[in-house]
């Protein structure tokens, strides 16, 4: 074996995978060839450094194992479902199987005969064209190179693409977000008796802002009658990690009447939605690829419709997912506030009463003046009706006075 051949073997001499005869040849060469000996040392150093680099390099996420195991369980669940579906057949005896086959064949022939009768054209009439089938070639998904040794076949047709899509949905756990903790929607409610509702509302707004949240709604009902209490209801939204802290802070604002916290674990829903979303996006990509291929107009229109409905589903699901993630990230708090002292117990003062009396008198005086003015106007407006009789009466009286007495 010459120097060049030995040099080619050196990396595998270093990793110890050479056959004994080859290893022996390398050792002999090293003893006599300084170049080979130098190369060998270089390769040993390279291996050492590479192993060191690998030892210090970051590995995959610690959540990958759980995601993969969850994926495995999903695959097994689907496998069991498919198995259960086929068990009814294997559970039948040979005679029963034969009976089912004969019955199926008979039904097929009857149905086939019926179809033949329906589709046969009467003499003199043109036969209907056969139903248009979507050519598989036109709907083929461009397949990446087959790598059979990996056991992963590329999709070859729409049906296979669909199968692959389903497989993608089962392997979608790989793309699940690495949740460090369950995805929980927290909601809380609290009712408080407070000394001053208005001040408490202002304080709650400050608390919400300090916790990087916000006031989503405010319903403030001020008392209109003595004896009523000032009541207000607020809806706050605060980051989930500040939920408990916010509840505790709010509880200090007054006397807590009721306090409740509810939690809903939506981890599975989020993961499922993400998986379905990814699956739909893959489907959309596949359909778009199909659109790029030439085919019959009817087939392309059909694909176009499928793309449209897939896009609708994607948008709907995306919105749902975002809403759910927002509800996880931000907890909703419903706070009811009520005055400790009813409005009746705080009567109006003397100044208030005098002021109210003056205001009432002014209002009444204005009203009277207006009514008088209105009356005068009415009299003026009806002048033609009362002025003419008065004038006639006046003239009659004057005429009677001027008439000579007989």
């Amino acid at each position, binding site marked *: 074996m010459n120097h060049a051949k030995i040099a*080619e073997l050196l*990396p*595998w001499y*270093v*990793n*110890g*995978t*050479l056959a004994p005869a080859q290893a022996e040849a390398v050792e002999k060469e090293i003893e006599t060839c300084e170049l080979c000996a*130098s*190369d060998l*040392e*270089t*390769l040993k*150093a*390279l*291996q050492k*450094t*590479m*192993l*060191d*680099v*690998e030892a*210090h*390099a*970051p*590995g*995959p*996420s*610690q959540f*990958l*194992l759980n*995601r*993969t*195991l969850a*994926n*495995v369980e999903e*695959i*097994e669940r689907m496998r069991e479902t498919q198995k259960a579906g086929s068990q009814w057949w294997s559970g039948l005896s040979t005679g029963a199987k034969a009976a089912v086959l004969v019955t199926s064949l008979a039904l097929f022939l009857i149905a086939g005969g019926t179809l033949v009768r329906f589709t046969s054209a009467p003499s003199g009439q043109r036969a209907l064209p056969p139903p248009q089938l979507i050519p598989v070639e036109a709907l083929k998904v461009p397949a*990446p*190179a087959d*790598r059979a*040794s*990996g*056991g*992963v076949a590329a999709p070859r047709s729409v049906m296979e693409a669909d199968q692959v899509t389903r497989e993608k949905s089962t*392997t979608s*756990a*790989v*793309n699940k977000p690495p949740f460090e903790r369950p995805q929980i929607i927290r909601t809380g409610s609290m009712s408080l008796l407070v000394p001053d509702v208005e001040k408490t509302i202002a304080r709650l707004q400050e608390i919400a802002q300090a916790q990087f949240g916000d006031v989503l709604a405010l319903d403030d009902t001020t008392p209109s009658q003595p004896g009523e209490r000032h009541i207000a209801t607020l809806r706050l939204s605060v980051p989930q990690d500040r939920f408990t802290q916010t509840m505790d802070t709010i509880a200090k604002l007054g006397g807590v009447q009721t306090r409740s916290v509810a939690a809903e674990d939506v981890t599975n829903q989020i993961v499922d939605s993400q998986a379905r979303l990814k699956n739909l996006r893959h489907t959309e990509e596949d359909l778009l690829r199909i659109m790029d291929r030439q085919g019959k107009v009817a087939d392309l229109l059909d694909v176009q419709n499928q793309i449209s409905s897939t896009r609708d589903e994607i948008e709907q699901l995306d919105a749902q997912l975002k809403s759910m993630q927002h509800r996880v990230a931000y907890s909703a708090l419903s706070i009811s506030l009520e005055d400790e002292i009813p409005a009746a117990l705080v009567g109006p003062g003397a100044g208030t009463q005098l002021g109210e009396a003056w205001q009432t008198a002014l209002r009444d005086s204005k009203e009277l003046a207006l009514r008088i003015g209105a009356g005068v106007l009415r009299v003026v407006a009806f002048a033609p009706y009362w002025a003419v009789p008065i004038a006639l009466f006046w003239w009659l009286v004057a005429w009677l006075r001027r008439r000579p007495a007989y």
Partner: protein
Amino acid sequence: MQTQQASSPQVEAQWIRQIAKRDRGAFEQLYRAYERKLYRYLLGIVRSPELAEELTGDVMIEVWKNASRYRGHAKPSTWIFGIAHNKGIDVLRRRQPQVTELHAVAGAPDPRPGPEAAAIDESERREVAAALDALSAEHRGVLDLAFNNGCSQAEIAQIVGCPINTVKSRMFYAKQQLRQVLERRGFRREIS
């Protein structure tokens, strides 16, 4: 995180047989033995930590689904790395990556400190890691399989699906380019 477990090919082959019988425990053991190796190997191909992680999970799922097809003609590592290689290359082909030209990297100005820093272990590690990253996926893969995973010429040929002579030539060019890149980056402490 649990550390990677050392295991022999016989033990791994036994795990795969158990996985074929739906043994979750065996799957978890095999996963732990290969998780890091696969991730690092795939990272060398796809150059994206997220994608490498996703593919690592995909490879293990393939192992779970196809364990019954493993006949034991090849070492378990050859079979598993073969799946990983195919998945990584498929992704590369679909993604049409911008492969970094080695000479372009070698010709670029060196933004790193001078050769003095090469005496520091951490710096040395970074230099070698960067030089490895500058290699093409094929050359990086051969070096990785040979030195990090102890694969023979025949096994590498089986994994990457090429003749043994191609493996040898890839190894030759990988060494040559690695040396050039290291020298160009000011890495004076030779790996020899």
